[in-house]
C-alpha cells in the first residue's frame, strides 16, 4: 500500500506544531483497559543492566580507536570581545601537536545561523576561539596555552535584570529584550480590574546547569568515504543533520552512533561545535579524533536552564479565579530561542480571562538549552506560588482552589476534548498519601520549638503525546528469537527495555529472546529523546512492526502446516492451532536463514483530541527558623500518563525528576560575576547538585489507566512531568510552615533567614540570580 499524506498535531517542549505525516496501512487499536498482558505493565529489570553494572557498557567517552588523536578547545576569557588575530605558530611547534583550527583557517562550517563555529566576536566566557588536535590530551591542553589571541574587549552584560535596563550595553540590533510569545483569552488583563481581590507578586528562578555526568563529547572517524561519529547524544539523527549542514556531506556518508549514554536532560540535542571540530580534524588529518568536554567546559558551554523574572497578577471574583496575567523574562544568554514559562498559565486551569507575555533576554553568558520541561518548571513555580498566595488571601484551601479549576474535559485553550484527563484523581491520591487533611492554614510545629512544619502541593500539565515520524523493524529469526531495530536511543530512561516489552507483548515471545538495536542512524528514523515523546512516538511503531512480523509468521506457518491462517495464533513462542502447539523453531527449521522482517511506522495523532499529561506533587517539609535550613520530609508524586509499560523504570523516572527538581528548588544556582563575566561555580564542588543525603522519602503513584485515544499502546511520556511541580509544592509547603513566602529559587538558608527577617515586607525577593 502506498503512503498517503495527512496533517497531524505534535507538541514538543511546550509548543504545538501542525505537521505533515506520511501514513502507510492501518493503525492498530490500543490494547483496551483491563486487557490481559504478558510483558507490558510488568516491572522488568533493564535488559542492558548487566553491561551497566559491569563496566562493559561503552560510552562515547570510552571509545578508543587506532591512531586516535585528541582535540581540545580554547575558550574565551572575555565575556565579549572581537577576535583580531590568532597566532598559533608556537602551539604548532610543540611536539605531538597535529593541527589547529580557528576563525582565520577554519573551513566554512554553517552552524546555528552563523557561517563558522568560530565567531569574529566571542560573546561569553567559554565561547569557542580555537581548537588543537594532538597525540594525547595533555599535549593538546599544553598547546592551548601556546596560542596567542589578540582580543579587543567590548562592553558586556551578564545579568538578566541588568540586561533589561535601558542603559545596558546593546547586544543585538533589536535590543536585548524581544517578545517571544504572547497569549490571551477573554478580556485579558482588563478583567483584573473587575476583581474583588487581586494578588500581585514577582518571582525569580536561577540558572540551573544540567551537569550530565558524561560530559558532551564526540569521536569522529573519516575513512575517506564515510564519516562515523560516536556521540553522547539524545538524538543521533539531529547530530547527523547538524553535520550535514556544517560539512556539506550527504546523509549517506554520515553515520552517528550512541550506544550507551551517560545522562541527557535536554542539552544533548544535536551536533555541537566539538562534534564539528572532531569531524573537520579527522577529515584533514586522516586519524580518528576525540573531543570530550571537561567538567568546566560542560558548565560554561553546554547549555543551561534560563534564569527567569516573572510578574503575576491573579484576580478573584465570585469564589473563582476570574483573571490572571503573567509576564516573564528569561535569560537566554547567547541562545537564539527561549522556553516560555507562561505555558502552564495558558493551559493548566479553567480561568476565563488570561493574558501572558514571554520575553527573551540576551546576555553575555552561555546559551540556554532545553533542560527537562524547559519553561514549565520555572513557570509552574511562579503560577502555583501565586495561586497559593491568592488562596491564603481569600481563605480557601489551596487544594480546593485548584479542584475548582482543574476539572475541564475540554482543553482550555482550544476547546477540543483531551484524549484523557485524570488530574482530579491525582489530587485525591496525593492528598490521601500526604495526609492533606492535617494541613493547617498557619502551618504546624516541627520536631523542635524552633522548627516549623508545613504542607504544600502543586499541579502539573505537559505534552508528552509524541507523534510521527518514528519507525521500527522487527526481524524474526528462524529460532524464534527477534531483533528490533529503531532509530531512537536510550539516554538512561530504560527505552531499550520498554521496546523489548512492547515487542514481546505483540509477538508473543519472551523479553529475554529479544535484542534491541538502537542509537545508530543506520536504523530507520527515530526522534530525539526529549519532550517526553519517546515511548509515545516509538512505542506504537514497535508494536506495529511486531504485529506485521507476527502476521507474516502466521502466513508462512499456514503454508508450512497446511492449516488456514485464521485457525492459527501465536502464544509464548509457539504457533497454536486446534491441533496443538508447536515452537517457532520447529515450524521454521526447514527454512534455515529465511527471516521474517516486520516494519512499523507511527501513525498520526487523533485530530479530535488534545494530548496532555497531568500530575500533582505534595510536599511535607520542616524548616529550621534559626539556621534557615529546609528539610523536605516527604514528596508524593502522582502522575497521569496513560498506561505504564514498566512500573519499575517509571518509578525511577519519577524519583529522578523529583530529586533534580529539589536541586532546582533548594541548592542549584549558577553564579556569574558581574564584573568579569566569569562563572564562579562551573564545577561540582560549589555548584550543588543533590547527594544521597538530600533525598527525602518519595512516593511515586500512577493513575495507570490506558489513554486509548492517544495511540495504539495507550501510553504518554514521563521524562519531564515529574520535574515540573516539585519546586512549587515545596515552596508552598515552606510558606505554609513559616507564614512567609520565598519568591526566589533556590530557597537557600540565607534566603529563608532573609525572608523571616523581612516578614512584614511585601516583596521578599532575595539577590537576583545570574
Amino acid at each position: 500500500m502506498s503512503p498517503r499524506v495527512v496533517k497531524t498535531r505534535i507538541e514538543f517542549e511546550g509548543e504545538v506544531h501542525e505537521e505533515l505525516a506520511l501514513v502507510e496501512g492501518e493503525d492498530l487499536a490500543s490494547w483496551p483497559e483491563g486487557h490481559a498482558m504478558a510483558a507490558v505493565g510488568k516491572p522488568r529489570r533493564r535488559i542492558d543492566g548487566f553491561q551497566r553494572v559491569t563496566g562493559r557498557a561503552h560510552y562515547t567517552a570510552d571509545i578508543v580507536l587506532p591512531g586516535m588523536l585528541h582535540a581540545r578547545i580554547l575558550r574565551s576569557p572575555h565575556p565579549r570581545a572581537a577576535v583580531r588575530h590568532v597566532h598559533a605558530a608556537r602551539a604548532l611547534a610543540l611536539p605531538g601537536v597535529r593541527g589547529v583550527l580557528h576563525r582565520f583557517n577554519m573551513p566554512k562550517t554553517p552552524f546555528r545561523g552563523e557561517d563558522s563555529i568560530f565567531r569574529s566576536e566571542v560573546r561569553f566566557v567559554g565561547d569557542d576561539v580555537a581548537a588543537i588536535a594532538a597525540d594525547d590530551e595533555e599535549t593538546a591542553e599544553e598547546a592551548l596555552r601556546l596560542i596567542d589571541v589578540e582580543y579587543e574587549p567590548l562592553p558586556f552584560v551578564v545579568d538578566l535584570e541588568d540586561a533589561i535596563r535601558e542603559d545596558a550595553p546593546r547586544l543585538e540590533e533589536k535590543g536585548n529584550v524581544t517578545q517571544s510569545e504572547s497569549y490571551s483569552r477573554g478580556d485579558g488583563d482588563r478583567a483584573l480590574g473587575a476583581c474583588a481581590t487581586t494578588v500581585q507578586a514577582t518571582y525569580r528562578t536561577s540558572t540551573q546547569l544540567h551537569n550530565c555526568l558524561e560530559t558532551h563529547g564526540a569521536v569522529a572517524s573519516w575513512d575517506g568515504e564515510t564519516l562515523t561519529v560516536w556521540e553522547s547524544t539524545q538524538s543521533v539523527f539531529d547530530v547527523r543533520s547538524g553535520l550535514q549542514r556544517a560539512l556539506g556531506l550527504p546523509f549517506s556518508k554520515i553515520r552517528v552512533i550512541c550506544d550507551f549514554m551517560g545522562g541527557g536532560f535536554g542539552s544533548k540535542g544535536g551536533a555541537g561545535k566539538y562534534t564539528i571540530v572532531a569531524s573537520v580534524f579527522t577529515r584533514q588529518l586522516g586519524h580518528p579524533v576525540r573531543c570530550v568536554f571537561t567538567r568546566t567546559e560542560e558548565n560554561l558551554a553546554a547549555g543551561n536552564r534560563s534564569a527567569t523574572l516573572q510578574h503575576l497578577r491573579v484576580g478573584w471574583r465570585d469564589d473563582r479565579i476570574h483573571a490572571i496575567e503573567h509576564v516573564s523574562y528569561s535569560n537566554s544568554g547567547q541562545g537564539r530561542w527561549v522556553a516560555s514559562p507562561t505555558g502552564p498559565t495558558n493551559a493548566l486551569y479553567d480561568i476565563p480571562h488570561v493574558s501572558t507575555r514571554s520575553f527573551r533576554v540576551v546576555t553575555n553568558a552561555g546559551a540556554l538549552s532545553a533542560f527537562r520541561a524547559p519553561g514549565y518548571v520555572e513557570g509552574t513555580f511562579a503560577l502555583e506560588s501565586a495561586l497559593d498566595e491568592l488562596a491564603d488571601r481569600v481563605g480557601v484551601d489551596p487544594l480546593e482552589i485548584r479542584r475548582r479549576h482543574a476539572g475541564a474535559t475540554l482543553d482550555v485553550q482550544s476547546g477540543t476534548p483531551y484524549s484523557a484527563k485524570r488530574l482530579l484523581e491525582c489530587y485525591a491520591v496525593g492528598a490521601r498519601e500526604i495526609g492533606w487533611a492535617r494541613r493547617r492554614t498557619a502551618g504546624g510545629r516541627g520536631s523542635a520549638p524552633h522548627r516549623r512544619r508545613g504542607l504544600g502541593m502543586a499541579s502539573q500539565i505537559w505534552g508528552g503525546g509524541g507523534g510521527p515520524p518514528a519507525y521500527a523493524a522487527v526481524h524474526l529469526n528462524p529460532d524464534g528469537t527477534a531483533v528490533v531495530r529503531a532509530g531512537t536511543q536510550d539516554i538512561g530512561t530504560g527505552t531499550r527495555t520498554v521496546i523489548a516489552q512492547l515487542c514481546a507483548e505483540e509477538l508473543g515471545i519472551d523479553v529475554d529472546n529479544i535484542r534491541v538495536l538502537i542509537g545508530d542512524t543506520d536504523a530507520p528514523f527515530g526522534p530525539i529523546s526529549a519532550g517526553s515523546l519517546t515511548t509515545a512516538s516509538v512505542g506504537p511503531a514497535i508494536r506495529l512492526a511486531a504485529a506485521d512480523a507476527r502476521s507474516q509468521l502466521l502466513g508462512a506457518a499456514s503454508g508450512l502446516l497446511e492449516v488456514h491462517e485464521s485457525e492459527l495464533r501465536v502464544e509464548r513462542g509457539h504457533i497454536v492451532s486446534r491441533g496443538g502447539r508447536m515452537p517457532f523453531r520447529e515450524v521454521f527449521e526447514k527454512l534455515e536463514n529465511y527471516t521474517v522482517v516486520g516494519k512499523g511506522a507511527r501513525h498520526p495523532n487523533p485530530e479530535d483530541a488534545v494530548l496532555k499529561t497531568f500530575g500533582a506533587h505534595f510536599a511535607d517539609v520542616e524548616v529550621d527558623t534559626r539556621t534557615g535550613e529546609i528539610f523536605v520530609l516527604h514528596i508524593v508524586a502522582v502522575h497521569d500518563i496513560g498506561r505504564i509499560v514498566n512500573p519499575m523504570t517509571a518509578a525511577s523516572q519519577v524519583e529522578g525528576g523529583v530529586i533534580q527538581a529539589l536541586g532546582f528548588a533548594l541548592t542549584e544556582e549558577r553564579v556569574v560575576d558581574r564584573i568579569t563575566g566569569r562563572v564562579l561555580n562551573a564545577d561540582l564542588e560549589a555548584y550543588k547538585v543533590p547527594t544521597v543525603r538530600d533525598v527525602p522519602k518519595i512516593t511515586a503513584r500512577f493513575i495507570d489507566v490506558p489513554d486509548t485515544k492517544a495511540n495504539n499502546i495507550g501510553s504518554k511520556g514521563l521524562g519531564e512531568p515529574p520535574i515540573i511541580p516539585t519546586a512549587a509544592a515545596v515552596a508552598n509547603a515552606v510558606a505554609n510552615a513559616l507564614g512567609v513566602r520565598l519568591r526566589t529559587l533556590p530557597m537557600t538558608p540565607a534566603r529563608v533567614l532573609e525572608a523571616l527577617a523581612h516578614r512584614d515586607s511585601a516583596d521578599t525577593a532575595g539577590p537576583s540570580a545570574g
Partner: protein
Amino acid sequence: MVGPSGVSLDTVSAMSARPRPTSFVGPGPVDVALDVNGRQVTLHVPPRRTLLDALRDELGLTATKKVCDEGTCGACTVLVDGRPVYSCMTLAIACEGRPVETLESLNREGALHPLQRAFVDHDAFQCGFCTPGQLMSLVALLRENAAPTEEDVKRAVAGNLCRCGAYPKIVAAGLAAARRTERAERLERERA
C-alpha cells in the same frame, strides 16, 4: 547539604597516613609497578599521571569513569589497599605495592557480584555513568560491615553523585545486597 568531598577527605588522610619513602622522580616518565585486580603490571608514565588516567588510558580499564577529574563527584572511585579512593586525586606512582581494585575485578568468573545483582534487581541506576563508583564505594562498605544500616549505606555513597537521581534505589540495593551477603555468610558458618 553534605558536600560530595566527604569521602575524598577521608581517603586523602588515609593515603597520607602511609607515605611512600621519599625519593624524587620525574619529570620524565618513570617505571611504576602496579597490582591491578591481582595482575602485576609495569607502566612507564610521568609521575603526574593520575591513577584514573593510568587505569583508563594505559590499561584500557574504562569501567572507572572520569566525570569531574577534581575529586568532587566520586565516579572514579576504586579501592586501594581495600579502601575507596578517588582515583583522579591519586597519583599512579603513589600506588606502587598497594593492591588496586576496579569494577572489572568484581565478576571475573562471569557471575554478578551480589551488589551488581542487587543494582540490576532494584533498578539502582539510570544512565549508569556513576554506577561503577557507587558499586566500589559499597564493596568497601560491605567488606568492613556485613550488616550495615541505611545510615551506613548513605554515608558510604555520600561522595558519589548521581545526576539521574537513582539514590533511593541505590540505598535499597546496598541494603538488599548486604542482607544477601550476610545470609550467605551465615549459612556458610552454620555448615562449617
